């Protein structure tokens, strides 16, 4: 099997699972609607099943009719026939659910007053729910189909570079231009649209579920709805996350195919595995984190403060314990005992009484509830903070208008004043502590006679300092070898001068000089790699200087040359 075939098969697998997830999402939505409408009118128990069937029908019909232009005769006929069948099936299912005798009596009633008898409240509510689900499913199917791309794009994606070049040249012959940007659909945009729709429907479901779980509903309906199942809402979001992952994969695959990027064969199976792992991890996280709070915000704060006070008092007690023991021992030695005849039997010392935390109404409150409440409020404020920040980031115009208000200005001035004061106090305290530490260290540390000579260690220098160090070394070695650098010579002049003596190391000299100019006078960063290069250049120059010195030394020792 070729890579292309395998990728195509994987692509179809992703699409099939995505469509299945859409069916599941819509079934969850139908359950929410069924629960909601169930408050007002009797709703058929088979509504979720019908919802699932409608979703599959909508997806299949869309894929069959998507090549028809919207609102054309063929399209209208297809859609009309589709809905006539849906209306009939829904009515049939609704009637059969109540039994055949009821169905027969209803048939008779249709002959008397068709509109009233046929379009019952139950039927209309079911139709409303099913239409909503059908519309959503069609939109989802449309997005997924768009993500697959057109036939032309599929052909284009499977072309090799030579074939693409041929298409372009043929188009150019006819004065046409193949625009790369318009060939594939904007898959990222489709993915975002799909995600946005899933979240919007999700919010609707959360609101419905929240509404259903309110106690006041029970007054109206006469039965408690607090136990209404919300598992469909949770499942909806889990399926939504899975769908988001798969559509992300589809979007990426489409983009990659267009760009002729080779995709590894393991990508799709591993993606499925990682997605599953990710969702399981999320599930565990969701299970661990607190989902309710038994303590209010102030109660939680007071409890936390109380716990902090206990910890502080315990620490003080631990610190004071040796002092108290010494005092106790001294008082016993000096005979100041408090009438305890047996000094060996000392009373257990309880350094500090640990009072109950402030604000704890119920001392028997489980610690887990406190932790959950604390965690809950912490997460709450983090989300509030981040959401506010995002809101500010997106509405800068509003805040710039707000800044022009005199009250805002006054508030900001007050804030700045406060900040400056706090900073002054903080700096004062910090400097006082620092001075104190310096004095203490000065007293503690022994006077050390520092050596007057220090060995320069290039490894401790910055790259810039290293380069300057190497150049200064060149000047020093050059002077020792008899080629001193005069004060009037620029680095380049000196390089030219010394090149006459060290022609072999000309490149290294130039590199060293340029590196020095760069390090000494430029403002941009000097990288360690550059310093290493200069170091190597310096090593070559140094070797050259050494060999030069040796040669001149030999000449001096044997001036005749014999």
């Amino acid at each position, binding site marked *: 099997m070729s890579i292309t075939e395998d990728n195509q098969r994987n692509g179809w697998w992703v699409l099939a699972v995505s469509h299945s997830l859409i069916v599941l999402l819509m079934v969850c939505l139908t359950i929410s609607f069924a629960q909601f409408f169930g408050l007002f009118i009797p709703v058929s128990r088979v509504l979720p099943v019908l919802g699932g069937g409608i979703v599959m029908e909508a997806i299949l019909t869309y894929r069959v009719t998507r090549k028809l232009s919207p609102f054309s005769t063929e399209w209208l006929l297809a859609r009309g026939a589709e809905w006539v069948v849906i209306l009939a099936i829904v009515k049939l299912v609704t009637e059969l659910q109540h039994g055949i005798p009821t169905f027969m009596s209803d048939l008779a009633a249709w002959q008397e007053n068709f509109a009233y008898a046929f379009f019952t409240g139950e039927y209309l509510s079911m139709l409303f729910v099913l239409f909503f689900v059908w519309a959503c499913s069609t939109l989802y199917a449309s997005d997924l189909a768009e993500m697959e791309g057109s036939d032309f794009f599929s052909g284009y994606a499977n072309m090799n570079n030579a074939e693409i070049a041929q298409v372009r040249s043929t188009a150019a012959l006819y004065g046409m231009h193949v625009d790369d940007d318009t060939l594939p659909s904007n898959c990222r945009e489709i993915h*975002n649209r799909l995600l946005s729709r899933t*979240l919007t429907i999700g919010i609707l479901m959360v609101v419905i579920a929240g509404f259903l779980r309110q106690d006041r509903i029970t007054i109206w309906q006469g039965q408690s709805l607090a136990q209404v199942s919300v598992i469909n809402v949770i499942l909806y*979001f889990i399926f939504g996350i899975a769908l988001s992952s798969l559509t*992300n994969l589809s979007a990426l695959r489409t983009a990659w195919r267009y760009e*002729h*990027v080779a995709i590894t064969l393991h990508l799709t199976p591993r993606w499925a595995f990682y997605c599953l792992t990710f969702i399981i991890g999320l599930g565990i996280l969701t299970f661990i984190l607190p989902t309710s709070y038994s303590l209010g915000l102030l109660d939680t704060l007071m409890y936390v403060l109380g716990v902090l006070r206990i910890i502080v008092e315990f620490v003080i007690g631990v610190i004071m314990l040796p002092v108290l023991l010494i005092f106790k021992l001294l008082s016993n030695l000096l005979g100041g005992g408090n009438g305890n005849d047996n000094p060996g039997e000392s009373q257990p010392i309880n350094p500090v009484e640990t009072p109950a935390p402030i604000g704890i109404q119920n001392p028997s409150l489980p610690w887990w509830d406190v932790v959950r409440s604390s965690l809950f409020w912490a997460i709450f404020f983090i989300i509030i903070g981040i959401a506010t920040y995002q809101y500010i980031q997106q509405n800068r115009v509003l805040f710039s208008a707000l800044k022009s208000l005199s009250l805002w200005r006054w508030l900001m001035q007050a804030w700045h004043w406060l900040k400056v004061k706090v900073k002054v106090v903080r700096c004062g305290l910090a400097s006082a502590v620092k001075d104190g530490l310096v004095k203490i260290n000065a007293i503690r540390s022994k006077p050390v006679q520092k050596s007057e000579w220090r060995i320069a260690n290039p490894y401790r220098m910055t790259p810039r300092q290293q380069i300057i160090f190497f150049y200064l070394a060149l000047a020093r070695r050059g002077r020792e070898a008899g080629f001193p650098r005069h004060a009037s010579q620029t680095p380049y002049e000196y390089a030219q001068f010394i090149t006459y003596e060290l*022609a072999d190391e000309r490149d290294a000299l130039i590199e060293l000089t340029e590196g020095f100019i760069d390090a000494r006078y430029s403002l941009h960063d000097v990288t360690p790699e550059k310093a290493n290069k200069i170091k190597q250049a310096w090593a070559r120059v140094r070797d050259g200087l050494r060999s030069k010195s040796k040669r001149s030394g030999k000449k001096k020792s044997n001036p005749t040359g014999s």
Partner: protein
Amino acid sequence: MKMGDYWLFLFILLVVAAIVRGDFAFSVLYLFLGALLLGKWWSGKAFTNITSNRYFDSHTFLGEAVPIRLEVRNRGWLPVVWLRLYESLPVELAVLNAVNQVITLGARSQCVLTYNLQARKRGYYAIGPLFASTGDILGLSSEQHDKGGVDHLTVYPKIIPLTRPRLPSHSPQGTLKSNQPIFEDPSRLLSKRDYTAGDSLRRVDWKTSAIVGRLQVKQFEPSIALETVIFLDLNLPDYESHFRIDSTELAIVISASLASWVIAKKQAVGLATNGVDQLDGSQSPRLLLPRKGRSHLIHILETLARLQAAETYPIDDLLRRESLHLSWGATLVVITGKADDILFDSLFQARRRGLNAVIILAGRIVDWQETKRKAELFGFPAYAFQNEQDLDLWRQ
């Protein structure tokens, strides 16, 4: 979808959760928040642990295939769901989209990609950088991109094996045979003959004379040392405008071939050029002093591989400046596109300092006859090579 939209959704969820004091809303909240933050953290953290290394021979000869092994490693425990890799490669060497693919990397695993480059043209090429990008599994956050390091590949210039280049030399006592008796080498004994009046007594072989019974004098074989410096002109205005690229490339091929021949003859060769070195991009004069040995030849070939023709400074400037460092009797081989009066003047000055000069014109020559006439007038050997086939003149 903007990040702010997610936070708006979270905020609504939070409000609903706070109103209903319900567990399910918070479950949904954590689910979504977790997906958002965990996904982003996962991809970001995993991406930081990706490293790549490239293994290949950094130097190659023209026409050879260079296998490159690219190792992409995930050093962390978090798997990388997808990783797109694109290797930027020089068009002169690479096949299209040699590395343009999407891979997935498990925890502490690696992926090895191999591809070949064809050394079709001499030069100093950047291999890489490797562009890598990844994203989170849900596509909620934007993609992350990174760029790897760059390695370099040097493709040596073409070397045409020469057999008989005609390079003059006045350096005595070398290893090359010469026809001029003035360069007799006392270490290369050719024969012995009877003494004739006028022969130097220092040439008398006393031992042989004693054996033979009459005075014998030694005859030495003349030899020269061919210390050659190739002055390669890569100043573009010196070449015919329509054939600049081909002509300069031919000049480099001639230089490489000559250097190779000289080194093969165990002589010293140097190189001076006014071309731009791709290594540092500098136009400063580049002089490799004459040396012997294969390592020096490789050094010259490396330099030639990196050189680029550009509008720099004229060859006669280089000649005047760099010929000062050369020893007496060395041979200057000037390879250029045109020889004007200034160049002849510079060569003439060099000859007065005891250097030999050869002019080689590479590429399309406009007024070759005029140049040849002037060269003959000054006494410089001059050759013109319009293409590589013309070098057969030195291969016969």
